[in-house]
């Protein structure tokens, strides 16, 4: 197998090896409160005021959002309302679901259970059905079902973890519904890890006071998601793939009445009229807030936030973003993917390009992340990868030196396998890490039944805010999309059963948005929603002709 590290990285590894024997059994002093405060203020992305911008248009005007998101919210629409003919309706449905990840799929299933006929539902999604962060979640799903645990304890853990900023009614719904969701999954046949009596094998997560994390190997999200999708296919619910929504439609009076979709391959638009519309587009990881790599999937570009906001739904807690201190920084194949905290718990130390320690390995997550950023960008002591990323070493071979040979293979088998694939043996060589953008804590404001303040529009999953306040606990996002996908699906169904077909489809709210931008003096070439991130080579884009060639 080829060496997974190029020469210049190999040279830095030699330095790490030289200092390793001196570092065995030693630890770096924990930061005092004052230094923690300072490093957070100077280097944690959430504390950098220049990373945020005040919104100047829309229902949350005056509140702050990450610059990258503000740019999208402050951009004109991707479409010109004058070029769109809304009189030709392509799909006339009871419920339109925008997004084919966990939340959208769950909403569809519960709308059917509530009595909506499958053919009167349309699920439109930007990529394939199932392409989502839901599919990528590894850790597990929280639900208080053990005797020693209770939904109340779950509530308390989550509200503390969220720094007491969570919406209380939403959090009650989350924790109270959790056991019901597990029961539903049991009936659907999700293969959870169980003991010999059939009870779930449960683990603790960061910030949980009970062993409450249910998992299905290292593939919990994938297992849940593929079962949900399988059930969805059994019900024969119509799906449009590669057909993202590009704007919501309204009645011109503040009520959502459907959406405009776009065929991503032909650029043709489709008009959908719906009695209820559910926004389930996920988060914003692919905006790469403050240039961070991300654990998120290709389509996580905040489309739902942009469309919902223009239709009048306020945003909340957008100023807080979840970063994990140790994402993989090399090789490119795994950049941004999570390197579990357990590697540090077992004794691996973060060290810089010269093999020097610079932070205690077990500072709180935000402090640890900020210290790694300081080492790379404040002190220029990071290691640069072939793709231009910076990171610090996590000196994994120390684990075997401390705990005896074979410990790494024994305790971290999946990680060892992952790195081996790319010619890196983490039992012999350190691995390169850097904080990674993980989760959008905030989002569209919702009520406990999944409705938004705008009539006709519902939202669930990562696109919504309030459930987790300013910080989500591990294992509560898989739960979130199940609980609120279900609630939104049921509430959307109830509305559709009562409401007649919307009388009017319009893009007047987009005209208003354009006016607002003009009034605010905003002039940008950008448009939004973004739909897909841009990763093409710089050299190519510099010579790119913006013309389309017909076949």
């Amino acid at each position, binding site marked *: 197998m080829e060496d997974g590290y190029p020469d*210049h990285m190999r040279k830095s590894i030699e330095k790490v090896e030289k200092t390793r024997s001196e570092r065995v059994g030693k630890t770096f002093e924990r930061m005092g409160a004052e230094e923690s405060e300072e490093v957070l203020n100077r280097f944690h992305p959430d504390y950098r005021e220049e990373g945020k911008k005040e919104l100047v248009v829309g229902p949350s005007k005056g509140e702050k959002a990450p610059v990258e998101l503000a740019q999208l919210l402050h951009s004109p629409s991707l479409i010109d309302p004058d070029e769109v003919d809304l009189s030709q309706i392509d799909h006339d449905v009871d419920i339109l679901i925008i997004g084919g990840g966990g939340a959208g799929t769950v909403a569809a299933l519960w709308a059917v259970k509530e009595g909506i006929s499958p053919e009167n539902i349309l699920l439109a999604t930007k990529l394939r059905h199932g392409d989502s962060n839901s599919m990528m979640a590894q850790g597990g799903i929280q639900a208080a079902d053990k005797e020693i645990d209770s*939904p109340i304890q779950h509530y*308390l853990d989550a509200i503390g973890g969220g720094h007491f900023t969570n919406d209380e009614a939403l959090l*009650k719904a989350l924790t*109270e519904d959790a056991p019901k969701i597990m029961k539903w999954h049991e009936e659907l*046949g999700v293969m959870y890890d169980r003991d010999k009596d059939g009870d779930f094998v449960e683990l603790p997560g960061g910030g949980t006071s009970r062993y409450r994390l249910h998992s299905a190997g290292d593939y919990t999200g994938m297992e849940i998601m593929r079962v949900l999708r399988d059930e969805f296919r059994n019900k024969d619910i119509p799906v449009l793939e590669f057909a993202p929504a590009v704007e919501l439609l309204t009645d011109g009076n503040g009520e959502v009445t459907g959406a405009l979709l776009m065929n991503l391959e032909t650029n043709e638009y489709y008009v959908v009229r719906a009695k209820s519309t559910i926004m389930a587009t996920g988060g914003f990881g692919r905006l790469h807030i403050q240039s961070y790599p991300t654990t998120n999937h290709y389509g996580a570009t905040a489309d739902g936030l942009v469309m919902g906001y223009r239709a009048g739904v306020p945003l909340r807690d957008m100023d807080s973003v979840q970063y994990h201190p140790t994402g993989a920084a090399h*090789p*490119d194949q795994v950049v941004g993917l999570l390197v579990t905290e357990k590697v540090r718990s077992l004794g691996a130390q973060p060290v810089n390009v010269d093999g020097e320690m610079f932070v205690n390995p077990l500072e709180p997550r935000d402090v640890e992340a900020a210290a790694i950023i300081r080492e790379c960008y404040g002190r220029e002591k990071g290691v640069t990868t072939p793709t231009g990323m910076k990171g610090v070493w996590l000196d994994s071979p120390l684990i075997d030196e401390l705990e005896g040979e074979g410990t790494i293979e024994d305790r971290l088998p999946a990680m060892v396998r992952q790195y081996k694939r790319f010619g890196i043996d983490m039992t012999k060589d350190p691995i390169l890490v850097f904080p990674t953008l993980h989760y959008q804590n905030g989002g569209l404001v919702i009520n406990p039944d999944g409705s938004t303040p705008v009539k006709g529009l519902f939202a669930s999953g990562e696109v919504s805010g309030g459930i987790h306040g300013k910080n989500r606990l591990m294992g509560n996002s898989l739960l979130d999309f199940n609980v609120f996908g279900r609630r939104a699906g049921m509430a959307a169904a109830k509305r559709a059963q009562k409401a007649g077909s919307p009388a009017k489809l319009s893009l007047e709210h987009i005209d208003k948005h354009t006016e607002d931008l003009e009034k605010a003096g905003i002039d940008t070439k950008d448009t939004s929603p973004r739909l897909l991130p841009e990763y093409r*080579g710089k050299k190519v884009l510099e010579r790119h002709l913006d013309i389309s060639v017909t076949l």
Partner: protein
Amino acid sequence: MADQEEQNMIDIYVMGRRYRVPEGLTIMTALEYAGYKYVRGCGCRGGFCGACSTVYRKEDDYKLKMDLACQTAVEDGMFLVQLPFVPALREAYEIEDVDPGEKDNVLLDLYPEIARCVSCNTCSKACPQDIEVMDYVQAALRGDVERTAKLSFDCLHCGLCSIRCPADIKHYHLAQLARRLKGRYLDLDSSELEKRIKELEEGIYTEEYEEMLKMTIDELKKCYEERKFEEEG
């Protein structure tokens, strides 16, 4: 970027056209470097979703190789074809009606073509997750739901197995059915969960929730700080 210039550049061929790209990129990022923008063939970019199945050949090798574009590094002289997902036919069923305890072989009933398996093992060789695909097809043929479910657990539904199969077997749909049968029928239900759901239905947490919702932030903080952790006993 200074480091960029120090990098080795290699040649790859996309549908026959040559591009020079830096060594160390994945097939996916190399194509993007070359100027391609994905619409299809790109999903989670982390080896979990199976959207980026790809087929390639090396210059002096007649063999077709298969892998995930996001999890495979480019090599000099790689000839690449992006493979859009090819859906295989799938049988609809009601999970309530397929109890394997009541039927001879549910898997064979819904997917009779597994009986055509010629044991060529092409499916296993095509699998980017190193699953013993042929072995679970054989297990399914014997009606062994448990083994089919376990062997197939790491399946990403990328579909490479089914594309290559000479017997038209829909491996990943078959495996999905087996896993759901195991989850629903073979695994015992949790009695703890049953008990908790009954408690919730009886409303025994209603009062506590009400108290919790009435608390001021300071009272909540106090409760939070005084939590006892399970591992402390």
